[in-house]
Each structure stands twice: as C-alpha cells, then as structure tokens.
C-alpha cells in the first residue's frame, strides 16, 4: 500500500474508495461499504484530496491539485482552501476557556482516521454574459464563484481551467446558492443560502480572496437571485418564509426591501429559482411546493426570529411543485397572474429557471428527474412542457442551474450531480447530446453532494453513515 493507498470498487457502482495516509498516522481502511444518504444526490466518494492554488504563477489560473495525499500538517491548508482561514495564516492563537487548562479533558487535537470530501467545485447556479462571452457558476462546496470563457469546453476527460475564481474568507461567501451578472456594469451578484444570509457584489475582474464591492443583508434561506435591468431592481426568493423580496439594485448594508410578495394567496411554496423579466415586467418563480406548519402573513409584516412571519399554526403540507408568475410590481399577499402546476407539467424538485424573452419560453432545471423542461412563457394550469431534454445522452444529472443564451442560441445547464456544465442548442429536445461539456474535474469524478450538511446518523445494521443535506 502506498501513501495514497489502495483503491477498490464499492457498492457495485464502480465508485472508488480511497484511504489515505494522514501524515504518517495510522490508516484505517473501511471494513465494509458505507452509504452516505443525501437528499440531493445519491453519490459516494470516500477519500481525501487536497486543493491548493494552481502553481502556474498566474492569479487567473486556479484549479485543484488532483488526488494528492493529505498529511496532518496540511489539514490546516484544507481548512484554508475551504475558505475558512485567511492566507497567509498568522500563528494560531489558542482559544482559552476558564478552567479548561486545569480540567482533565480527554481527546484533543486528534486527526481523523478517514475523511469523505469532494475536492472539486460543485456547480449550482449558472449565468451567461453573451456580450462579454463569459459564463459564471456558483460553487457551494468550495464557497466560490468561477468564471469561464463562454466558448471553452473539455475536449476529452480533462477539466477546463476557469478564468477567475472568487473564493476565500474575505469574499464572505458561504453557501453560495445563486449567481447572476450585470454585463453593463460588469458586476457579479451572489446570494448565500442557509448560512451567510448575504448578497455579495463583485467586479467582473475580481479573482481570489477579495472583498466584495458591496454587501446586502438578506433574509435567512435566500436561494434565487435575478436582476431586472429595466427597473434596476433585484428579486430574491426565500425558501422557508415563502417570500420574494425585491430590492433596489444598488441596495447595500441593511437596506430594506422595496416590496415583498408573501402570504397564503401568493401560492409560493418553498420558492427556489427566480427570473425577473424586464421586458414583460413579471417575476417568474419555481416552487418546490413545501408549506411548513405556520401560515405566512402578508408581506408587510416584519419577519420573526427565524425569518418567519409569525402567523397561525395551520399544519404543514406538500403541495405540488409549480411555476408561479407575478406582476413585477406585486406587493404583499397577491395571487399569481399565472400558475403552471399539475401532473402534466412533470415538475419535480424544480430548481433554477430561465426565461427566453425573445421566444417566450421558460426553462426549468427539474432536478427530481434530471431533466430540463421548457414551457411556453404564457402557459398556465396543468400544462405539459413544449420540450423536455432528458435521457442518458444528455448527461443531465441533478441539474441546479439553467440559463438561456439567446444571442448564441444556446442553453446552459449546471449539474449538481456531476462535475459538469452542459451546453445545448436552444431548441434541443429529447435525449439529445450536449454541444459542449465544461468539466471542473476529470471525467468520472464522483460528487459527494454535501451542501451545508447539518446532521449525521449511524446505521448499525448496514455499517453505514447517513447524512441529510
């Protein structure tokens, strides 16, 4: 066994587990296959791989150092690369608590015997700037935003080197759910979900561990983000409180929203993807359909401690997923002007969505069945999609992001269940192969799928570990 140890297939799925030498400490191989249960992606990766800046001398080129063993002395570097520690790091100052020095405390600074982690970016949101031929993608795994040349692609199994990577503690980014851009102002906008609760704005040329131009505090559980270039406003979807908050595009600090869409009439249910359509002055929202046990109150009510408007307890329920559409100036508890919902829609865990305002179509990243569903922009009710991209040839796996590039007649898809972004022809349909593939890891690299995991359980019957996202 070398320092990188042996590899063998587990679980009959051709996936690899790898046990690595932790700087000379004793190494345990796993006694039997283990399962990591994920709410978003049922993938397995057992191993430790290190990230560090690409040693090319250029600050514009950053990519993972693939499959290098990690030593205990380098574990600090893993934290640093996870965006937790500044670089260069000053000598750590030991935190002291009263009586700890005198107490007999077992354990201490013990290295793990095994680690499961994904060293590569996990793609979440995608946005295209067809004016400047750039593509930006958010990465909640490494707390980063990566930009690529719009025309770049992997010719084989190799990853594409990003043009820039915004990441590190100074960026303030944590669980980066969404990214969008303002090509005219050359600004990148990101929003954090679940931890962070901030919207960050960076200049286009931001790269590395840099401060944003401005920061806006947003409600807890923000997910989607969209700019209306006509109104100069930003719309943000918020999951648990089931609300859409609209800010001035220039908002910063603790600025209040201009208006909110919230309340039982809105039909909002765990909203995710959002598109603020400047041409038609509409806000289009993808809803998972979850309703927690407390009814939301109208948007004029100040949210409670968990960002939740304090309404009556009515009991939770699982509504059907939907796409709801609101007038751009909607404020408060107002019903949508259109609602796509029902069995014919095939909506299942709809994540991001994008609107093609020239051809009047809505594309939905339908994570539940790994498809992209295209609807007429004006359709309503229980309506079937006009096209579906789905199948083995498409390479679509748990899509989180989707974006039209109307200028180039293309459609971008960001896979959360694979280390790829896919580019299709705008009118692609069925089991169509993508025109281009942008890999951020060598082909075949599995994704762990951890996204701000908060709990773990041990299955003693199967000797497995269960991790919900």
């Amino acid at each position, binding site marked *: 066994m070398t320092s990188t140890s042996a590899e063998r297939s587990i679980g009959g799925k051709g996936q690899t587990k790898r046990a690595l030498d932790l700087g000379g400490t004793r190494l345990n191989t796993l006694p039997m296959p283990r399962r990591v249960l994920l709410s978003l992606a049922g993938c397995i990766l057992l191993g430790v791989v290190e990230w560090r800046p690409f040693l090319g001398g250029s600050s514009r080129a950053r990519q993972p150092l693939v499959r290098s063993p990690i030593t205990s002395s380098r574990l600090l570097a893993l934290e640093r690369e996870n965006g937790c520690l500044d670089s260069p790091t000053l000598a750590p100052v030991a935190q002291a608590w009263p009586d700890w020095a005198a107490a007999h405390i077992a354990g201490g600074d013990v290295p793990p015997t095994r680690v499961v982690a994904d060293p590569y970016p996990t793609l979440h949101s995608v946005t295209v700037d067809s004016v400047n031929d750039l593509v930006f993608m958010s990465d909640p795994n490494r707390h980063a935003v990566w930009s690529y040349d719009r025309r770049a692609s992997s010719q084989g199994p190799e990853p594409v080197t990003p043009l820039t990577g915004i990441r590190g503690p100074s960026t303030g980014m944590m669980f980066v759910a969404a990214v969008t851009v303002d090509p005219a102002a050359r600004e990148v906008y990101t929003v954090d979900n679940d931890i962070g609760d901030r919207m960050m704005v960076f200049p286009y040329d931001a790269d590395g561990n840099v401060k944003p131009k401005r920061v806006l505090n947003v409600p807890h559980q923000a997910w989607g983000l969209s700019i209306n270039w006509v109104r100069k406003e930003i719309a943000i979807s918020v999951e648990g409180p089931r609300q859409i908050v609209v800010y001035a595009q220039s908002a910063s600090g603790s600025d209040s929203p201009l208006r909110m869409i919230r309340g039982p009439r809105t039909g909002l249910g765990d909203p995710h993807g959002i598109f603020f359509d400047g041409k038609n002055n509409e806000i289009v929202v993808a809803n998972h359909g979850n309703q927690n046990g407390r009814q939301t109150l109208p948007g004029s009510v100040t949210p409670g401690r968990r960002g939740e408007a304090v309404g009556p307890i009515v009991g939770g329920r699982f509504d059907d997923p939907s796409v709801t559409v609101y007038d751009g100036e909607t404020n408060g508890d107002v019903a949508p002007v259109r609602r796509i919902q029902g069995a014919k829609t095939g909506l299942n865990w709809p994540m991001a969505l994008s609107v093609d305002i020239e051809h009047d179509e809505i594309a939905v990243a339908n994570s539940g069945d790994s498809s992209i569903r295209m609807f007429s922009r004006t359709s309503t009710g229980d309506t079937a999609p006009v096209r579906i991209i789905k199948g083995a040839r498409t390479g679509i796996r748990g899509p989180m992001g989707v974006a039209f590039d109307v200028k180039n007649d293309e459609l971008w898809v960001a896979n959360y269940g694979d280390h790829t972004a896919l580019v299709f022809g705008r009118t692609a349909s069925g089991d169509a192969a993508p025109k281009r593939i942008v890999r951020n890891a060598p082909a075949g690299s599995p994704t762990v799928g951890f996204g701000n*995991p908060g709990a773990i359980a041990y*299955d003693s019957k199967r000797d497995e570990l269960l991790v919900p996202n």
Partner: protein
Amino acid sequence: MHGIFYNPRDDEIVVPVALGGAVLTLPGGANGGDPPVRVLQGPKTGLVQPDTLYVDVAHDEMVVDSGDDSVLVFQRKASGDTAPIRKIGGPTTQIRNIYGLSVDSVHNLIVVANRVDLGGRESSDGILIFNRTDSGDVAPRAVIAGPRTGIIKIRQVVVDEERGQIFATIKNNFENYDFEQERPSPWNPDRTGFIGVWSIHDNGDVPPRGVIKGPASSLVWPAGVAINPRNREVYAIDSVSNALFMFTMPELFKKPASATGDFNR
C-alpha cells in the same frame, strides 16, 4: 434537513422536514425516490418547522423539535395528523431554539441542544436535560451552559447510553461579516468548532470531559455527530468543510468520573 435518525430495531430512517412541517419515516434501505412508510404532518401535530428529532426505540416514542420552541413526543408509529402525547415547552423549560435532541432511555432523560442567540457574537447556548416523561412548562433537571463549557452555537447531540455521556457538536463561531474591516471574514480562524463530551450527570458551567478540537482534527464547523461505541468511533459532519470525518477515540468511550456542577434533582 438538519436531522436524521436510524432505528436499528425496526430498520427505519426517520427525518424531519422543516420546510414541510413534517416527519417522514422511510425504510432502512431506502434509496432514490423511495416513498416514506409514514408521514406525520398536520395542525394537530404542532409541527411547525421541525429541524431535528430522535427515536426512543426502547419506549417506542419519537421526540421531535416542533420548530416552535418546544419538544414534542409522539408514539413512534404516529402518522397523519396526530397530536403529540407529551409536550415540553414554556418559559420555565428555557427551551428557545432546538438544534439537537437525544434520548437516554437507560437513564430516562431527554437531552436538548438549545440555542439562545443574544445578538452579535454573544449567546447563552447550552445543553438542557429533562426527565424522559416530563411534560408541560417544567424546569430542566440540569443545564450545561456558561463560559467554561465553551458551548457557542451548539448543533447535534447524541448520548452514549451505556456510559452516560453526551456528545455535542459546537460550532464555536458566528457567521458575522464586518464589511468595514480591511480583510473581513465570516469565520474566526482561531475559533474553530469542536466535539465536546459531557456526562449526563454534569450540571452548570463545567468544562467538557472530552473534546476533539484543533487544526489536526480538521473540524471547522462540526454540525452533526454520531457515535459507534462498538468501534469506539466518532463521526462528524462539517457544514463549512462539507466533509465527513471519522475519528477513532477509545478515550471518549470510558465511563466518566463523578458528576460535576450543581446537580439539582
């Protein structure tokens, strides 16, 4: 989802669904889109936004965070719109924001990871211990909290019933971001999180009896903890590293010395 439980006796996985105000029970071997065998949801349940839960297999009960500052106890097989059989909540309980729950069925205890944010970088988080059959607005039998505990931003807790030890994940940090600083950071690198171990007999402002903490541990913001007493292993999931760590820690699976603090009942 911020909670999960595996029930080895009945081979079931139980999860809270905060965004749907529900508790789902799935087969132990569930995979992909397998449906739940039971769904607990509705106005009678009192479930608002449940974040965490625990199944007391020995007593066939399910202990669930209501998402509304109370602990709800249901029959294990409760489904549909069913009311809890007991509820612990109210000002005397000190329960504010539950991030972890565990049951010690041997010593008949419910252990609550309780968050009380005081604003900024201040909190009075702690571990509340109740009698298993407590109900109503009752005082906890013990509270482990205070500066000596190091408990700041507590998350999941689990009890090693045989040895009467509580394992807790402590994030020890706040995701504040002071934009005005030259090099701001949402994390304080000198205040990484840890796993702390206390006795079920501890009470008051007492240091942990065991920890996994420090740069070699790789723990940044440990959010979840599970234990395998048979292998003397501790498992931690980290919400910033997005990584799962396994530690071999025989020293944390020894019976603790006598209780510390003011054990009041």
